């Protein structure tokens, strides 16, 4: 009853979400009374791989390859490793990569798949997990009835736990692996905080009134060490890039603190942010639906309030 966790890397480095995934796998392995193995695909050096030991990794299988993400080839490799390590549960992140690979791995293993699982399984025998459905309007409990199971974890729902211990790193033979996807060019954000990874997100809506008003919002984000985001109308209007759109059809995020500035809070928007631990809303309309989803609210004009907020947080940070 062992567990295999697939992890990705960003230019050879792991992130907090990687450690969450590894320690999540460790706790599931403990629940099942089995071992945990990790499969890493890509160029990651031994020092970085060994960091996983602190989160309970035990054994890391490293498929060191330059090959870009290729759904078919990567899934075949993960399934092969899952079979070799006798994994009964395979765990991935519920992000772009996990969504690409988990369904293919599930078919290869003849396993049931539940995506976007919230936290640890509710029971192991039967294997029951909880997840959101209807874009956050409902929660459901699902039982995976097949012998093997694949799940993807909703980020920031399990938390990072430390399990200090020894870790061994073993290479995986990748000589037979080949992809058919040709990468022509790539455009990767550098230096900015990843929206899906950020603990604090500052997000603007149509109430910001125009792209020229974003500077104060960016200043607030900078003071808080936050990522910036926006609502759908804002990205549709081209005020902000599409990758900043959070909501049902954009990115689904779960930061510790979410600022909804000039966002009315349509149901489609809430679907993307309702997992935030704390929501602060600022809107000039006291009746805006965002206030039913928010923990703290301010009714007023953003152009006045935003600079005051930045100043207040700056003062707080300076004294912290």
């Amino acid at each position, binding site marked *: 009853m062992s567990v295999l966790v697939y992890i990705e890397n960003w230019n050879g480095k792991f992130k907090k979400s990687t450690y969450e995934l590894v320690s999540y796998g460790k706790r599931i392995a403990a629940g099942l009374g089995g071992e945990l193995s990790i499969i890493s695909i890509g160029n990651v050096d031994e020092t970085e791989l060994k960091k996983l030991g602190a989160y309970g990794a035990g054994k890391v299988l490293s498929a060191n390859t330059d090959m870009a993400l290729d759904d078919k080839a990567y899934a075949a490799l993960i399934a092969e490793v899952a079979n070799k390590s006798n994994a009964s549960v395979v765990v991935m992140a519920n992000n772009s990569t996990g*969504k*690409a690979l988990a369904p293919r791995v599930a*078919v290869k293993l003849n396993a049931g798949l539940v995506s976007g699982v919230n936290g640890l399984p509710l029971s192991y025998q039967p294997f029951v997990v909880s997840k959101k459905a209807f874009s956050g309007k*409902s929660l459901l409990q699902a039982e995976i009835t097949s012998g093997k199971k694949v799940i993807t974890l909703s980020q920031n729902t399990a938390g990072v736990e430390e399990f200090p211990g020894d870790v061994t790193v073993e290479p995986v033979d990748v000589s037979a692996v080949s992809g058919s996807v040709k990468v022509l060019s*790539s455009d*990767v*954000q550098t230096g900015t905080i990843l929206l899906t990874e950020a603990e604090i997100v500052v997000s603007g809506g149509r109430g910001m009134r125009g792209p020229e008003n974003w500077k104060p919002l960016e200043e607030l984000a900078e003071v808080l060490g936050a990522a910036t985001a926006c609502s759908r109308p804002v990205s549709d209007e081209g005020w902000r890039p599409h990758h900043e759109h959070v909501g049902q059809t954009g990115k689904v995020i779960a930061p510790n603190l979410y600022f909804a500035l000039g966002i009315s809070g349509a149901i489609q928007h809430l679907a993307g942010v309702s997992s935030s631990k704390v929501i602060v809303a600022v809107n000039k309309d006291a009746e805006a639906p965002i206030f039913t989803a928010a*923990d703290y*609210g301010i009714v007023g004009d953003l152009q006045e309030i935003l600079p005051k907020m930045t100043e207040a947080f700056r003062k707080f940070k300076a004294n912290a």
Partner: protein
Amino acid sequence: MNILVCISNVPDTTTRIKYSADMKEVDYSGVQWIINPWDELALTRAIELKEANPALVQKITVITAGRADVEATLRKALACGADDAIRVDAASGDSLYTASQLANAVKGDAYDVILCGIESSDYNNSAVGGMMAELLDYNSVSAVSSLNLDGNTIKVTREIDGGKQNIEVAGPVVLIVQKGIAINPRIPSMRGIMTARTKPLKVVPATDVIPASRVVSYEAPPAKSACKMIAPDHIEELVNLLHNEARVI
């Protein structure tokens, strides 16, 4: 080139979700059904490509798995501009069950591109497209936000965590699409609605497949406690609450 678009029939986004008394099922009475928003974008892009490359894209087929009541959604897709439709006469099941029904229905057919939305707005399981690709032994690319045809070459942009990649992939391929693939969903015209009535809609029987997961029960998300309002001239109170009460800064 033939394009297959997989359609899921889902409750309208603004539907209030109701449950059976034992919380084991969703009560769908009175629900307005729509084409899953991501599938609608996939269909829109397929139609755009056919209109832009009439010599290249011969046919757009839409497929769904479900009972006869989902045919209204297929007819809507035909009215938008798809050429023909397939309904696999299957009950609802888990992702593996649905993907198997769709894959079995089209196995052996010559589709160069199969488009699936990245998730459905009901179960949000993000699984059917990737599973179909594996069942058919096709390549797949997920999180596709742009699709262009350069002759028979398929060029796509896929979103990755923190960026994007422009890639080229050979067909047959399953493209799992998200926001950006098309901007404004196609709305059926009156003429489209008229011609849709006579477009072919084939019903194929379900195949024997055992689901690998099931829903045990539903619950409503926990209610949020009331929003604490802060006066606009007391911003330091917000800082204080976030630090001492919510403990998030």
